[in-house]
């Protein structure tokens, strides 16, 4: 157990390090410069800005300074495009929002996808199976940026208490979460169905049936746990996918989450912001994968040894 945790953490650290390094250099290779604005930037102005943000120092010194600040002082730097705001503040303000949206979506996705998968498996090859799988496929193929506006039009407009966009009241989480959950729900449904089918064809299930154990008990007590293994394996990446994929939903529904910063950061060439986000995401995903692994172990003790 400890070994797994440690190896995961190590892997995460390596990945984060590589990721940040890659981003550090890649973003400086983008055309344009971070300081353009409506009023013309004279040569002196541009040089002044570069000096202020330490961009006039040689590249490797900037790189070293960045790590020094992050590791020793927890300072991700100041955002280039949002004057006066520290990157860590931007992340700490927006992450809880993305997290809330993400968790809500995930719970919805699980509530939708897993039962769907179970039903499909139980009625294998009958119309319930086909219908469930088509619904699942729809979840994958009717994407967020098609679904979002449709929801806005169909639900938000007629129902006055449901806002079209924005994040001003608790109910604002509903529409975006539903939009976001479908894709993940679809994958969960397929994986659950597959896992369930696998398990149901096992010998020990057949013997339980022969012994007269009720259908319900078979499902809940014997089949469910191992059947959910593929789905749970997917939860780690699913969570990461939700958090990263949410930027489309955030821009449709104007949610002040982390996803928007990515797009904004790259568009404005805000070096520190993008680096900070990449760093944060890397760590986040490492943790998500770790949680997923731990959940797996909890569910299927056989995996404890691997």
């Amino acid at each position, binding site marked *: 157990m400890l070994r797994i945790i440690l190896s995961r953490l190590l*892997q*995460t650290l*390596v*990945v984060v390090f*590589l*990721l940040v390094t*890659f*981003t550090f250099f*890649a*973003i400086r*290779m*983008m*055309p344009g410069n971070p300081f353009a604005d409506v009023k013309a930037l004279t040569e002196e102005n541009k040089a002044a800005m570069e000096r202020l943000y330490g961009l006039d120092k040689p590249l490797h010194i900037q790189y070293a300074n960045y790590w020094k600040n992050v590791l020793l002082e927890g300072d991700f730097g100041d955002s280039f495009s949002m004057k006066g705001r520290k990157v860590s503040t931007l992340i700490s303000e927006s992450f809880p929002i993305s997290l809330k949206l993400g968790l809500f979506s995930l719970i919805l996705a699980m509530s939708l996808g897993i039962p769907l998968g179970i039903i499909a498996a139980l009625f*294998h090859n009958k119309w319930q199976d*086909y219908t469930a*799988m*088509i619904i699942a*496929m*729809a979840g*994958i*193929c*009717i*994407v967020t*940026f*098609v679904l*979002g*506006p449709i929801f*806005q*039009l169909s639900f938000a407009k007629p129902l006055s208490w449901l806002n079209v966009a924005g994040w001003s009241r608790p109910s604002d989480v509903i529409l975006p979460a539903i939009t976001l959950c479908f894709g993940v729900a679809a994958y969960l449904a397929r994986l659950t*169905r*597959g896992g369930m*089918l*696998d398990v149901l064809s096992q010998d020990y299930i057949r013997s339980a049936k022969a012994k007269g154990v009720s259908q319900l008990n078979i499902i809940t007590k014997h089949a469910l746990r191992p059947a959910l293994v593929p789905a749970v394996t997917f939860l780690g990446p699913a969570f*990461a996918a939700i958090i*990263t*994929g949410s*930027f*489309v939903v955030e*821009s*449709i529904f104007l949610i002040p989450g982390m996803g928007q910063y*990515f*797009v904004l950061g*790259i*568009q404005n060439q805000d070096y520190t912001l*993008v680096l900070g*986000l*990449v760093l944060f*995401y*890397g760590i986040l*995903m*490492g943790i998500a*994968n770790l949680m997923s692994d731990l959940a797996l172990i909890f569910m299927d003790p056989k995996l404890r040894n691997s």
Partner: protein
Amino acid sequence: MSSSVKALPAGLKDAEKGSSLWADAYVRLKKNKLAMLGGIIVISILITCFVIAPILSWIGFDGNEQDLANKFSGPSTKNLLGTDQLGRDLLMRVLQGGQISLLVAIMATMLTVTIGVIYGGIAGYVGGRIGNAMMRIVDGLLAMPFLIIVILFREVISGQVDEIARFLIDDWGWNDNDVLRFANLIPLTFAIAGFGWLSMGRIVRSSAASLAQQEFVEAARSLGLSHRRILFRHILPNMLGPIIIYATLTIPSFILYEATLSYIGLGIEPPNSSWGKLIQEGANYLETNITVLAVPAVLFSLTLFAFNFLGDGLRDALDPKASKD
């Protein structure tokens, strides 16, 4: 479902021997109605976008000609599906968008397959510590946030591509319109493929690894066949199944990536337009004219459906062990 071995009566040479993997697979595939439907739709869409559309444009339908007096009009003889926000023919716009979306996805997939097969094949065949190390690298890279890296990659590449395009136009005198149209696609294609190959590499590797351990490979080695020969003539053909399956399933996810990027404005640049961009523009006009959103959205979703069903069907057909039957 493994067919039980039947004892062959003598003389029945051309009686039913064990049929090949492909024939079996085809039979299974045919039974899967959804997959067949998917296949038909895929082929229809490909034909429509790449055969019919050029014909239509040769006849005179033009997706680029604006008619500001005629915005958002309904279907007519001139505009079979009506016009868009600048009076352009919607049908052609959507078909041309489809060309781009499909082109990017298919090119990226081909690149992905090439890189993935080479990398994964070597990793699986060589195995051992080198193979493991190669896979560790892949795992590490897979942990990175795909979309973000693609965006960065693309911005960087497009700067270089612009220069090359300029060079081709100015110094070599190529037709500027075509070069630019094509050049615009390159950064995105390479960026997507540049990270998409990782999953393919994983699949290929496990396939190659399991094949490499089979006895026929040992036999071939003991016969003195070169590694290259074994790889190309024995291992690769046997991996075709998973490769085809995965490629078919990769295409829709690449279409989706491109569309997502174009939606947030970091994908295709004008003069090209893709389904993602069309959907993004259309979403703005929901109240004025829903057709502008509906047509590309429906076509887009349909294509994704079709490819996914086909891929699923292929997987069920070609790899019975993984099937749920």
